[in-house]
């Protein structure tokens, strides 16, 4: 019990929680991107992948609910830290330049909130098909079976100029969030040291760059009509 309190109520313990939940969410984001890059392999590949993901009901919902719970913990703990951090400096500096604090680390809360609302919209729109009726009804033939035509849903859904723009903006927010976040995971868990810190910095930044390019590519090709 004391151990749980020492983790969930202390400053350092909550760093672990932020780092571990952040790592899990980041891992999901990369898997999600790699899965969706199959868009470039054509309709059959993506639709097959979509069928595979939905093939086991219990696994699918366990995964979704687990991920949701992790995201919820990440958000709740972040907000609790944010409230405390604001309270720790009740009177602001008259000259507040923060010259040694980089932009990405200042934008963690704003970017996180933006990502939260984007994900809500993204799930309701593309996964749930609630916001644009008829969008997710498209069917395609896979062998002799009729399946959801995820390929054309994605191209139509993300190809809409306003929707596509939202994806691009959200990608920028996510990349900025992870630019600071991925490296921070190692610091928060005590894995960063004088030997590894440069490797950690450049490998995490390369990963973020890959994510950024990949995630921008999908809405761009959909919006510009390169994939049809």
């Amino acid at each position, binding site marked *: 019990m*004391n*151990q749980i*309190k*020492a*983790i969930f*109520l*202390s*400053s*350092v*313990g*909550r*760093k*672990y929680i932020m780092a571990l939940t952040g790592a899990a969410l980041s891992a999901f984001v990369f898997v999600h991107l790699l899965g969706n890059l199959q868009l470039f392999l054509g309709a059959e590949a993506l639709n097959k992948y979509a069928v595979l993901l939905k093939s086991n009901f219990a696994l699918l919902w366990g995964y979704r609910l687990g991920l949701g719970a992790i995201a919820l913990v990440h958000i709740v703990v972040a907000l609790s*830290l944010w409230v*405390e*951090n604001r*309270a*720790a*400096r*009740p*009177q*602001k*500096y*008259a*000259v*507040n*330049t*923060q*010259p*040694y*604090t*980089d932009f990405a*680390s*200042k934008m*963690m809360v704003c970017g996180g909130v933006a990502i939260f609302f984007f994900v809500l919209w993204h799930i309701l729109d593309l996964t749930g098909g609630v916001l644009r009726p008829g969008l997710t009804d498209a069917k395609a033939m896979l062998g002799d079976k009729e399946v959801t035509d995820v390929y054309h849903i994605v191209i139509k859904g993300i190809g809409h100029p306003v929707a596509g723009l939202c994806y691009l903006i959200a990608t920028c927010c996510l990349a900025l969030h992870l630019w*600071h976040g991925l*490296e*921070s995971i*190692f*610091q*928060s*868990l*005590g*894995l*960063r*040291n*004088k030997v590894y*810190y440069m490797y950690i910095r450049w490998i995490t930044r390369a990963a973020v760059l890959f994510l950024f390019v990949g995630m921008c590519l999908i809405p761009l090709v959909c919006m510009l009509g390169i994939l049809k």
Partner: protein
Amino acid sequence: MNLNLKVWRQKNETSEGEMKSYVAKDVSPDMSFLEMLDVVNEELIMKGEDPIAFDSDCREGICGTCSMVVNGVPHGPQRGTTVCQLHMRHFKDGDSIAIEPWRAKPFPILKDLITNRQAFDRILQAGGYISVNTGNVGDANALPIAKDKADQAMDAAACIGCGACVAACKNASAMLFVSAKVGHLGFLPQGQPERDRRVWRMISQMDKEGFGNCTNTYACESVCPKRISAMFISRMNRDYAMAVAKGECNNL
């Protein structure tokens, strides 16, 4: 040279403060920042006004007493020095300089630029020590310590406890200070018996004092006059996990 100062003036802990403008005339580039303030104060005293109150002691950059935020940067623009070792040659004639105290809830402002930093003392009292029977000085090399360990312990021990890390942190977190104090004993054999207890107690006390939480911006190490590395924070995070896993949190 002449400088336009904007200084935080606050009568006491409970009163409201404000930025007030002063002109520092005929400042020599060889003066230290605090000597410049001394000159301004002499003029204020001659005029019968209340001089600007600020903390200072050794004026050699080793005691950690001086503490002011110059143009938004704790200890001023020159890195790796305390404000008492900042010389006026780093400024130009006609410059505007804003001078403020450290701002953090655990460091209440007592008067003008002076803050109460006893929160740091309480953190040290919670565990920043080793328990040994004192007596005669031990033999110099009776306890062998590897050179790299000794070096790292020394790097951490360079912390003078000025609080610039708290002042610079956007969250007013004291992690760099605490990690330096945890680190310098944690590297040495003398610090091992109480290693878990130390990190557990010091972090618990740090949280109680109301400091913010670290978000890994590393502004602290950038302003630290002793250039303490934020790597010590990483090490402390690891030590804390070990202490909690070993059940140190059940002992209080």
